[in-house]
């Protein structure tokens, strides 16, 4: 019996990262190996293993070794409401910052 760390802090940290949100989204469509995920996110295997490990610790992702390949699927744990709201708020702030950056570039030299 695996004891998952299900504190809000851990979940918050897990979903606060845009790469990890991307991994959850992708696994929502179909399971994938670590190698496939690393390729999809243009990242080293080591880097992707770390992200997957963080998601696995919170129970959001489940991994299983099949032969030489580690296959990742969405875990069965439900995502807390707080974590979902924070992820939503964070995405909004990040989108506004991106939009501000684009605006500043667009208007360079206007004044």
């Amino acid at each position: 019996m695996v004891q998952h760390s299900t504190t809000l802090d851990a979940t918050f940290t897990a979903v606060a990262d845009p790469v990890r949100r991307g991994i959850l989204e992708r696994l929502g469509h179909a399971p994938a190996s670590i190698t496939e995920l690393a390729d999809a996110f243009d990242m080293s295997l080591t880097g992707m293993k770390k992200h997957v490990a963080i998601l696995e610790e919170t129970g959001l992702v489940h991994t299983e070794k099949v032969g030489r390949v580690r296959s990742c699927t969405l875990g069965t744990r439900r995502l807390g409401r707080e974590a979902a709201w924070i992820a939503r708020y964070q995405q909004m702030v990040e989108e506004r910052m991106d939009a501000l950056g684009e605006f500043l570039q667009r208007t360079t030299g206007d004044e």
Partner: protein
Amino acid sequence: MEITNAGRRATLSTPNDRELRIERIFDAPRPRVWRAMTEPELVKQWWGRGNPLTVERMEVERGGHWRFVEHADGEDHGFEGRFREVVPPEKLSMTFEWDGAPGHTVVQTITLEDLGDNRTRMVSTSMFFTKDDRDGMMSAGMEGGMNESYQALDRVLAAMG
């Protein structure tokens, strides 16, 4: 954790479950960034993330009221709050509420650091209050048979796009 995004996103950290910190570096001098954040005619051009924005109030002074309405997909989304601290051109602190969940407030503090070379670092710190507050925000904002699965989160995030 370190995240790069075209070299502009510096770091994002989550020191605890009540605070969210996001950093970004802009290729613009600090006074320009400050003006873009505080002058209504400029705010209108980016705050809506591509959606039309109405700036209903923008009283950039301590205790002053701000209220923006974002028009997205035929719906109006109102956001408002009051300025708590205004120190041009380096610090802006304000409360943030969404009309969909009145009374559940986030305090956002934005600091701008002059890095020289016409670059500016922005640090945004958002403080959430009690879990009850967050629950209130969630129940008001995510009704409609949404379950708490990842798929639901995906839909919400996609719908926000």
